[in-house]
């Protein structure tokens, strides 16, 4: 088990291996994710019953919660990738972290915008400066900070290190987001999903939510793979394997 993990680590550390392995994985993530999203969204929009308190506006949950959850897990992945890069000087790890930043930012935007739209009919306001909403906005700014570092610093080594350090420091914000609804008074409702308790939602509302969450994670994998592969191709453009890949066609 341990040696298999170690081998995988070294293989993923090699750009060529990473490229070939993820090319094989990619269609699985794409199709499983797409099917789960299609079923989850149609179920959530058209077949799940309306919420007894919020009516039909609660259907926003099927994109809001997956996006919010994933934007936080993505941040942790970006920070771990940065840490691995800093500690073990693993180049590929930085590449993955760099790929995650714009995706995570887009997910945080989805969470914030759908949350604001959901807030209007439910709370009567688009926005309040309370702990949950503010810490989510800070998450978006952290992502934008990482993107800005990569845009501003020419030297690759410096950019990688600075981005990784910001990512790692910013993880302080993650538990703040998570517990913000418990530590402070807030308009935001408490967590819909907990791993330790039974769901409080009816199954016909809860199952489609689980489907869209897993679906979003699969799509996230597709997006990270696509961006990482682009970066690999450019970095490795002088190698034999990229040249032979181009002559046989890598336009998928």
């Amino acid at each position, binding site marked *: 088990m341990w040696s298999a993990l170690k081998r995988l680590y070294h293989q993923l550390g090699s750009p060529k291996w990473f490229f070939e392995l993820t090319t094989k994985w990619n269609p699985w993530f794409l199709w499983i994710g797409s099917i789960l999203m299609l079923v989850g969204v149609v179920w959530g929009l058209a077949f*799940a019953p309306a919420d007894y308190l919020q009516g039909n506006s609660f259907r*926003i949950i099927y*994109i809001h919660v997956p996006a919010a959850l994933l934007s936080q897990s993505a941040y942790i992945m970006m920070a771990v990738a940065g840490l691995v890069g800093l500690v073990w000087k693993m180049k590929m790890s930085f590449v993955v972290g760099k790929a995650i930043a714009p995706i995570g930012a*887009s997910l945080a935007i989805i969470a914030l915008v759908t949350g604001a*739209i959901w807030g209007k*009919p439910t709370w009567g306001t688009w926005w309040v400066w309370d702990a949950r909403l503010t810490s989510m906005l800070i998450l978006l700014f952290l992502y934008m900070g990482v993107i800005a570092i990569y845009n501003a610093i020419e030297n690759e080594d410096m950019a990688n290190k600075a981005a990784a350090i910001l990512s790692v420091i910013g993880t302080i914000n993650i538990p703040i987001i998570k517990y913000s609804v418990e530590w402070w008074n807030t308009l935001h409702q408490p967590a819909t999903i907990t791993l330790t308790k039974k769901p409080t939602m009816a199954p016909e509302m809860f199952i489609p939510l689980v489907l869209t969450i897993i679906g979003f994670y699969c799509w996230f994998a597709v*997006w990270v793979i696509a961006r990482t592969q682009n970066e690999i191709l*450019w970095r490795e453009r002088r190698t034999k394997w990229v040249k032979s890949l*181009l002559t046989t066609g890598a*336009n998928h």
Partner: protein
Amino acid sequence: MFFDSFTDFIQMNGHGMFVWASYGIAAVIVAQNFIGPKLTRKRVIKDIERQLRREQK
């Protein structure tokens, strides 16, 4: 189906505007996440090919 008619489904008892706007914006951002890297891939491949051709001369 939870709704009685297609009009019902679109209007969602007055919440339709909020629900459809949320899904619409999310769809645009999701689509961008799929299309953006695809366009980058095309550009990267074109750049590398141009460079290879230049080197062969």
